[in-house]
Structure formats: C-alpha cells, structure tokens
C-alpha cells in the first residue's frame, strides 16, 4: 500500500514538473501549423485580389517591354501554385523575397522597421495596463454594493468616451496642443525619449479606458464572492485582499481582452505612425497591401502573425497559471 502511494506521489510530481514543458511543446507545434495556414491564406488572398503591382511600381510611363521584363523576372507569370511553392522554399532558406516597390529585400525592410512598431506597441500596452489595473480596481472597491453611484456614472462615461475616441484623432489633437501650440514636445519622428510620449499616449489611452472598465465590472462580481468574505473574516489588510484575492480572479476577461488589444496594437499603429512619421511596420503593411507588393505583404503578415500568436500563447499560459482549474491549461 505504501509503495503504491509513494510511486503515485512520485509520478504525480514528475507529471507536474513536465506539465509546462509539454504545454510549451504542444503550443510550439501548433504555432508552426498556424503560421503555415496564415501564410497560405494571405498568399491566396493577395494574389487573387485584382491589381497590377508592376505597372503601378514602374508608373504608367514605363514601356510595356520593361513592365513585361520585370514581371517575368519576378516570376509573376508562373502559375500560382508554382509561385507558392517557390515562396515556401524561400521561407525555409530564410529568404523572404524582394519587395516589388522598393527593390529591397523584404527581410531587411522588416528588420529595420519592426523594432519601432514593437516598441511603440509594447510601451503603449504597458502604459495602458499600468493605468487600467489600479484605476479599475480602485473604482471597483469604491463602487461596490451600490456605493458612490455618482462615481460609477462618471467613471463609466469617461472610460467609454476616452475609449471611443479614434486613436488618430487623439494623436492629431495631442500634436495640435502639445507640439504645435505649446511646443513642449517634438512634432514627429523617433528621436530621443521625448518623441515617444505623444505616440504612446495616443495609443494607450483608449485601451486603458476599455481595460479599466472591464476590470471594474469583473472585480465587482469578484468582490461579492464568498471567498472574499472569507478573506475579510481573516481580517487581512485591504491591500492584500485586493491584490492577492480579488485581482487574480478578476482578470480572466481582462487578460483576454488585453491580449487582443496588444495584438491589435501591433497591427493598429498605422494611423498613429502616419501622424507622427514614426518609422515603423504599420504603415508598411497598409502601403504594401494597397500597392499589391506581394512579397512585402506576405512578409509582414508572417511577422504580424508570429507576434499575435505568441501573444495569444502568453495569454493562455497566464490564464492557466492564474486559474489552474480552467481547461485552458489542458487545451
């Protein structure tokens, strides 16, 4: 009897240690397959949408012979499946192709512009979280059980208002006030820490408001939970109850939404990048789709896909860590 129990206990321990390793391997495999599907889908879509990138890149004044020569050399006269296989082959070699518009290697272009966008997105997300979590929790505690109705209305309205303002409109307004009128901050460009302030704010304020709202709603229902009453009965400090008992249980929807917002930020910096002349990837994506620059589109979709899928995996892992009972851990 004892032996059985001991062995079971050991197995239990081993399984527990390997639980995260198995999780990681499973997710990595799934990541690769997901990427493949993403690449294929984007390849098909961009090639099936009508439009002539070569003629557009060379301009209407280019002779037909030149256009044809370029088209031939880029392999665009080959059948679609051949182009697809060629592209996949290139991917395995690490070659993302050459941009039709700029004639530069796609990998170089992405490597140059990606850090700017990533930095902006991550900073904006961090700022949003740093604002949203304390704000949401504080207001939840203040408005629980029907208290402070005025605060509730005020908070709900202001978060919705701020969350409803389009980020490019906010960006333009911020520039108009702080750069053009007051001259405190640079108008555009990415040079020096001051130049980060306005773009990050423009991107972060909307998500911060939305996250704070969601968090407050979730926290309110957690505050009514029995185990919070237990924590009060244990006469723990309010700070500890809020941080250790309420917050981890309140973040499910917030975390998921946060993950969505982050991945949305990575791809959604386009308009803000335009307003601030920020040298990032966001404007590349839009521009390349508009000019049907196939290799560049596929390259940026690939990078974007990797980023989003990674963020999703992180969110799942965090959810599993926070709520071990959730089947997300087993998924």
């Amino acid at each position: 009897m004892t032996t059985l129990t001991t062995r079971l206990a050991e197995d239990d321990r081993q399984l527990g240690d390997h639980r995260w390793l198995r999780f990681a391997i499973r997710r990595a495999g799934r990541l690769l397959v997901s990427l493949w599907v993403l690449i294929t889908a984007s390849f098909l879509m961009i090639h099936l949408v009508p439009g002539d990138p070569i003629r557009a890149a060379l301009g209407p004044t280019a002779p037909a012979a030149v256009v044809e020569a370029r088209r031939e050399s880029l392999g665009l006269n080959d059948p679609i499946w051949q182009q697809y296989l060629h592209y996949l082959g290139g991917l395995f070699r690490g070659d993302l192709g050459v941009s039709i518009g700029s004639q530069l290697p796609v990998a170089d272009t992405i490597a140059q512009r990606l850090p700017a966008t990533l930095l902006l997105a991550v900073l904006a997300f961090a700022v949003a979280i740093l604002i949203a979590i304390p704000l949401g929790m504080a207001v939840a505690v203040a408005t629980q059980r029907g208290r402070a109705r005025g605060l509730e209305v005020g908070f709900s309205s202001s978060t919705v208002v701020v969350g409803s303002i389009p980020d490019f409109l906010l960006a333009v307004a911020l520039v108009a006030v702080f750069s053009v009128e007051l001259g405190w901050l640079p108008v555009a460009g990415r040079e020096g820490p001051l130049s980060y302030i306005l773009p990050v704010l423009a991107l972060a304020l909307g998500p911060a408001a939305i996250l704070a709202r969601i968090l407050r709603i979730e926290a309110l229902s957690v505050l009514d939970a029995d185990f919070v009453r237990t924590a009060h009965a244990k006469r723990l400090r309010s700070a500890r109850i809020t941080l250790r008992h309420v917050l981890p249980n309140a973040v499910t929807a917030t975390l998921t939404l946060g993950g969505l917002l982050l991945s949305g930020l990575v791809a959604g910096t386009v308009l803000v990048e335009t307003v601030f002349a920020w040298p990032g990837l966001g404007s590349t994506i839009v521009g390349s789709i508009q000019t049907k620059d196939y290799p560049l589109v596929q390259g940026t979709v690939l990078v974007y896909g990797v980023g989003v899928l990674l963020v999703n995996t992180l969110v799942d892992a965090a959810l599993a860590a926070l709520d071990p009972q959730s089947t997300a851990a087993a998924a």
Partner: protein
Amino acid sequence: MTPNRSAVTAVVAVTALASVLVGCSSGGGGDGAPVEGGTFTQILGSDPGNLDPQVSAGSALFDLSKLAYDSLVSVSADGEVRSQLASEWSVEGTTATLTIPDGITCGDGSAFTAQTAADNLNWISDPANQSGFLGAFLPVGVTSTAEGDTLTMTLSTPAPFLLLGLSGLPMVCGGSLTDRDGLAAGTDGTGPYVLTEAVPSDHYTYELREDYAWGPDGATVDEPGIPARVVVRVVSDGTTAANLLLSGEVNAAQLTGPDADRAIGADLFTIENTAIAGEQWYNHTEGHPTSDPAVRRALTQAVDLDELANVLTAGKGGPATALAVVSPTVCTYDAISGAIPEFDVDAANATLDDAGWVRGADGVREKDGTRLSLTFLYENSLGAAAAAAAELALASWQEIGVEVEGKQQDETALLDATFSTGAWDIAWLTLSVNSPDQAVGFLSGAVPPDGSNFSAIANDDYTAAVAEATLTDGSEGCGVWQKAETALFEAADIVPFANATVFMFGNGAEFDWSGVIEPTSMRLVG
C-alpha cells in the same frame, strides 16, 4: 474660406502669445544672413526604397538622386537648357553630340568621362535592365558611343525633346554600372553631396563635396549659405509635414490643400508650380458606348469643367491648359480653351438625341437595346476633393440620362483596369509629363500589351500633326504640338480639365525648385 480656430484649440487662447512668438521666429526667409556650414532638412513624402537612381523612375527618388548624381544637361524653370556634366551639345535629326570636359570626378575620386556617359546610356537603353527611365526620359532604340571627350548618341527616330529628357537622367559612376549592389543603399555619383547615412523610411543624410564645380551653368559649392549637410526626412502625412515646417524643424516641404494654407498664412518663402490634377479619359475600344464620338462629346458637355476644377483643387488651381504642364516644361501653350466642347446641358442632350440614344422609362438612355450604362474609375489617393468632384460629375451625367457607376480605386487596381482588363468607360488618370512627346504613346499607336495607348485613341489629325512636330527640335515645334493637342480636345477624345497649383515652402532657407530642388541653389538663411 477664412481659417477659424475653435473647439480643440481652446488652449490657443491662452497660448496665443507663444504661437505668435513661434510664428515670428520661423517666419519668412530672405531677410536673414546666410548661415555657413549648416544643415538643410527637407521632407520627402514617401520612402523611395532602393536608391539605385536608374531603375525606378518614381518621383520620390528624384529628390534624393539629384543630391548625389548629375545629369548630362540641366534645364531651368523656364525651359532653357544649361550645362551640367556636358559643356557643349548639339542635336541634329537623329544624332546628338555632347562634350564631356575633363576634371569631373566622382565621390570616390575616379574620373567621369564621355565613355562613362556612353556606358550609362547604353545600360538604360537595354530593356533587359528594366530601367524605368527608358521610354520616358530616354527614347527607345538609342545607341551611344564615346571618343575622347565626345559623346555621340544615335537615335532611331527624331526626339524633339531629347535634351529635356536627358536633364532628368542621373549619371552613375563607372564602377557601379556593372556591379549595382552598392547603389541600393549607397551612392556613387558625381553630384555635390554624398550619402553618409541611410535609415529607410526615416531619414537620409548627405555630406557636401567641397571640390564640386560642375553645377548648372558651372555653379560651384563655394557660395555663402550652402549647407554642409543635407538631411532628407520621410514624412508621408501632409499635416505632420506642415507642422514640422512651421515649427522650424525642417527647412523645406511641399504642401497641398489646407496644409499649404497654413504655410501661406505663415508668410514663408514660397515657390509655386503647376501640375495637372484632372484628366478625363474615355475608353475608345469597340464595344464600349464611349467609342461613339457623340457619347464622348455629350459627356464632356454635360459637366461644368470649371466648377469641377475648382472643387477638385479645393480652390487652388484652375482649368487645364495642355497635357504637358509639369515643370520644367519647354512648351507653355493653352490648347484647351476654345477647343474643348463648352459646358451646355441642352447641347449635351441634343447630341445624344441626334445620335439615336433615346431616354427610357427610368430616364436612362438606350440605343439598339443597349443601355447607356458606364463604369467610371478614379483614384483614391486624391482624397476628399476627388470624391467631391466625382460626385459632381456623377450628378451631371445622371441629368442627361447616362447611368454611371463610380468606383474609387487604388492605383494598382486602376492601372490594372486600364492597362490590362479594359473594364472601364470613363477614368480620371493623371499623366504627368514635361514635354508633349512623352504623351504620344498614350494618345496614339498600339494598345496594351504592345503599347501604352490604353484608351485606344485613334485620331488621324493628331497623328499627322505629331509626325510633323517630331521633325522640329524643342521649342520651335511648340506651335505644331499645340495644333496636335487641339485636334484631340476638339474631338473630346481626352479631356484634361484641371491644373493644380503646387506649393513648395522654405523656412530658414531659399532655393530654386522646378519639381526637384536644385542642390547648388540651396541657401540657408538665418
């Protein structure tokens, strides 16, 4: 149209003093002393990508190429040919002769000779190299040879504006002609500046070459106020560009629309130029209702083109004058007024009635069972003004019983439709050319894929006049070119309807500008 601040800029009231101060410090040029050894910052609207000056003929690259590369000749704003790399030149029929003097050096110190020039021209002429300059700036079928300091170009057909084309053709130094990899992110030319730093999509930095002495008309860089460094910043948003200009963070920017209004209001150094903004093309191919001259005429008569021009340019422009208006131009005539069918709705209706297009029960005309139903394409990059103008045109056509479906498209889709699929009847496409001969391939001759005549125009009067004009050289032939274009407009084969005023502004700097800033003319002023 007086600007009026309100709402968001409530803070303005408080900081009015600050803004006045800002305005003062950046206002106007010309009354300050030249600044020695400074940095000239200019704005580029989009990133040119590959910096090889002879592969892409995109306008984004022109500004950059001009800094590091020279052309064989240069042309002033009023069309006069001046020396650059070549000190002497002559064009006779199908032969052009240019003299390249000694003493011209590249950034790395190597010499630039007539042979280098010949190699350049032959490289561009070869279609296998896929140079975007072939056809537009250098006619097809040119062979070039060099002997000593003489460069001889042999053309296949006479090219009346050869020198104008050459003035836009950058010359690359010998070493890089064959091994072009370095040109993608670096420069190898004879120009006054050398690229020292390239951060694509952000900025490019150039440093001055002290020994440069072969600018237009022999200009050197030994002048007060010449910048020691030039920084080109890539900013795609016009409003951001205006902000940078007004705050003094950049010295030069090209602005349009309301952004230009702000700069005009700030009383900055200004240069104006004309560009073609609205050109209405009809599809002449068989099977399209627009192949019927009466239909084209009626469609033209139905719209108030002056009003259309006003709306399209948001008040900063006017009626079109000719096909080639982008400076530097050689011919400046007005071939349009008096030629294009006048705005007259009754006449439009009559034209269609006479041609047998009868109004149906729902108001749309029909003839032999075919509804007069057309597809109208226009580009989306022109923004709200174009959409507004399109709405106006659509309403006008509906009035005369034509059913038109308008589609705003991006450039690739538009070019695909016009050059490949042919699924269009009316299109607004702007062909920006400097000389009338650059447009010939679009207005006559072979249709795609063999040629560029995508609207399938076949106007014998035009073709005949062009043949005559091609025999005369340059500005002497302007009268004949005008006659040629008039033939097109009278038949309403193609209808240019709007010229826009393009503004270039300088803040703390002055310069010559004719589409591109002339580097040797840049002066920083305090």
